[in-house]
Structures are given as C-alpha cells and as structure tokens.
C-alpha cells in the first residue's frame, strides 16, 4: 500500500483517518444534531409545508405534519376579504397562542449552522486539494461497473458487512453514500437554508428563484434533512455492525 498521505511516519499498510478528517467529522456531528433538533422545534411552530413563494394558515398546504398543537389550528376570527373581490384573498386574526419556542431555537439553529458552514467549507477545500476526495471518497469510474454495484448491494442486503478497516478504505456503496452527503445533501441544506433569508435573497435573487420561492426552499430544506437523517441512521447501524469499538477508536484517536 502507498505511503499514507499527510501522515508521514505512520505504519505502512494500515491507513488511518487523518486528524483533520476526524476533527471535521465530530464538528459536523455536533452541528448536525443541533441543527436537526432546533430545526424540528422551529418546524413545530408551523408544521405545514407549501410550494412556491407564499403559504400560510389561510392558504392550502402541500401537507401538514402532526407534530404540534398548531397542527390542529383553529381559533381564527371571521375572515374578511382583503381586496374588493369578495372571492379573493382574505385576512383573519389568530385568536389563540400557538406552540412557539422559535426565539432560542432559531438563534441556536443559526449558531450551529455557522459551525457547519465554516468548518464545512474548510473541509471541502482540504478534501478537494489534498486528494482525500479523489483517493478515498469519490467512487472511481471502473468501480461503478453494474456487476460490482450489484454485488455490493447484494452484500449489504444480506448484511455481509466487512469488519472495520480503521481508515478511509471505503466500500463502493459507502463511497456513494458519503459522496451524496458531502457533495449533494449537506450543500443543499445550506443553500436552501440561505434561500429562506430575506437579506440574502434581496442581495442574490437567484438564490430564491433557483428553488421556486421561499416556501419551496423550505420544503426542500425539510426533505434534504429527512435524507440526511436516513443517512445518519444507516451510518450508525453500519458502524455498530462493522465493529463499534474499532470504528469509534479510528474516528477519535485515529488508530
């Protein structure tokens, strides 16, 4: 096996996770867990999802999530027409308090987002220019031959999981999953998040148009989160299955 890049003096033959990869991993872990939790708290204030730019309790939703008392919304004053046209848009006053913990949840969400965005950008730059993505994460073209992909899928379905290598020698589906998270899902979370910022969309209108409006960006933000959540569930299951102690040692002390 080749010399361990960036880790001279390390034993040949066994490649370990580089220190910056380990640090990035745990920063992302804490940040994503905080984002997931506070994101759900924020969603509970208004658990309805829409498409387009505008959507509220007085307009139809794509669907509603039964996750807070605001789900069974009611308690609205008699609606009044907003324009001359009596069948047009309406206004109504809300007469009851909803579940709303958004004050701290929003602030903590954005604080955690900085901890995803800034170290995440450093991680992407280091991975791109240091060769980590090319040698470990990005699947090679010849690996993607249909029979190889099929073999790895069958192995996973039969739960034939090879024991942990303790380093970045990833399997094919593993590479595909990591690539999807690092290059697609996580950046999509960030960009759809930014597309909900009134100050940023004023400065960069394309950000909003890209996703078809504020509420579309919010809906995509939610489904990208669900995708990431599924990834985390499978990721943790695979860590346990392939040797929990070995994997945790490899990703913390780097042995």
């Amino acid at each position, binding site marked *: 096996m080749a010399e361990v890049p960036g880790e001279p003096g390390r034993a040949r033959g066994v490649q370990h996770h580089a220190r910056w990869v380990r640090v990035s991993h745990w920063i992302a872990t804490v940040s994503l867990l905080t984002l997931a939790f506070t994101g759900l708290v924020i969603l509970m204030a208004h658990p309805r999802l829409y498409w387009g730019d505008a959507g509220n309790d007085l307009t139809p939703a794509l669907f509603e999530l039964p996750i807070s008392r605001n789900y069974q919304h009611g308690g609205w004053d008699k609606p009044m027409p907003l324009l001359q046209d009596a069948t047009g848009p309406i206004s109504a006053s809300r007469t009851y308090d909803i579940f709303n913990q958004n004050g701290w949840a*929003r602030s*903590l969400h954005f604080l955690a987002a900085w901890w995803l965005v800034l170290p995440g950008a450093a991680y992407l730059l280091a991975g791109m220019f240091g060769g980590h993505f090319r040698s470990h994460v990005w699947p090679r073209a010849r690996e993607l031959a249909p029979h190889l992909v099929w073999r790895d899928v069958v192995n996973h379905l039969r739960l034939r999981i090879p024991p942990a290598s303790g380093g970045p020698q990833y399997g094919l589906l593993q590479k595909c999953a990591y690539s999807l998270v690092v290059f697609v899902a996580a950046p999509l979370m960030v960009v759809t998040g930014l597309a909900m910022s009134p100050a940023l969309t*004023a400065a960069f209108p394309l950000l909003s148009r890209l996703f078809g409006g504020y509420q579309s960006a919010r809906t995509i933000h939610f489904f990208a989160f669900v995708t990431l959540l599924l990834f985390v569930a499978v990721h943790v299951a695979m860590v346990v299955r392939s040797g929990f102690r070995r994997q945790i040692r490899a990703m913390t002390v780097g042995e």
Partner: protein
Amino acid sequence: MKTTGLITRRRAIVTGLASVGGLFLTRFPKDLPPTYGNLLRMGDTFTYAAHRALLPGQSLVREYSPKDITSFPATGTTNPGVSEKSALGDAYRRLQIGAFADWRLSVEGRVATPRTFSLAELKQLPSRTQITRHTCEEGWTAIGQWTGVPLGLVLGAAGILPAARFVVFYSYDDWVDSIDLLDALHPQTILAYGMNGRDLPLPHGAPVRLRVERQMGYKSMKYLQRIVVTDEFDDGGQRGNIQNGWAWYTGI
C-alpha cells in the same frame, strides 16, 4: 533553506485571504448589539456582522405583481385597544374611535428638530407602494401590497444628526424595537398606512406600521406610536425582543 521571495501556494492563499478580509473589515459595523455574554446572542451578532460586512448595502427585495397578493393572517397583537389593559390601550381605543384623526407620530432623539406627524402630514410626503413578501419567523409567508412614506424621508424631515446610529420604535401594543441606519434608510423601509389599496386594517397595525423588508416579519412593528433616533443601542428592556429571547437582527 532560504525561502525569502518565494511565492508558495500557502503564502499566496494566506495573503489572498488576508486582503479579502481586510476589504470586509472596512464594512464591519462599528456599533454591535450587546451579547450579554450569551452564546445565542453571540451567534446573532456574528450573523449581523457577517451580513453587514459581506452583503451589498441597499439591494431591494423582490416586488410582486397585484395578482400575486395572497391571504394574510394577522398574528400577535390584533387590537391593542382590547388587549392592552393600560393607559396605552385606553389611548389607542380613543384614537380608534376618532378614526385616528388625533393620532400623532412623534419623531425625537438625535434629530435637529424633534416633531410630530399626523396621518394627513405623513400622506402629504411622497409615497411608495410595494408588493412584497412578509416572512414570519414561524415559517409562513404572505404577499401583500403596502403604501406608505419611506422612513428616510420622515427622518430627513426631522433632520437626522451625524451621531445617529439606530432608530427605535415604540408601539401601542407596548413593544420596543430598533433597526440600524442601513435598514432605516433602505428605500423599501416604509411607514405603511395602506394595505392592498385600502387604509391599513386594524389587525395589521392601524393606523401606521413599519415595513422592514429585509428582515423577518416581527421587525415590521405594528401600531406605531413614537420614533426615537439614538446614538447607542437600546434593547428595549423588558418590552424588547432580546430580553424576551428573540434575536434583534433577523435578516436570516
């Protein structure tokens, strides 16, 4: 090993980042809201500083066409005359009975000539009509048409002083909030007295509400009573966002 004069990749990157950083530092806001040693407030302040340092100054939010106007919930206070059990609520109720003919908006603080504006006086100033999206921090949005006078014109009429840094608003539902001068002088920041071609309805903040289009809906205060220009940050005490757990800057 002699490396002087060599332009290494590392050195090029560091120099490049430092010069870009230097450019942004000149735009970094001088007056930051206090963090009270609170981690969440530090995050809010970091976001505020980053927005002010990195975003172009006065870009406009998207304006829509009349057919985009949607239904519009009225939340929070929807009638201070009923909900405020105080002198403020009584005062509002009296103004409402008189169709706001006696309503006066006081503009004071760091201005050359502190004065008041009646509704008629505000309507005599040049007006601006804009169809914009109201973005509530709860997660819902609504599109409405607002007519009013740009806040910059009102502040200009009172003669804003060079020491001015923030504009503080007091409302009839007993709330205090403020914005910085960049937002106060933004062309789309208006004191709105009309909504969708009619007088501003009571649940939406009659007679006059603020529109701060580049921030979350809760910064667009309803039921305006008084405007104070200050040279220092004022968190509004127990009637302001910060001490109630809400971020002061909400451009995100």
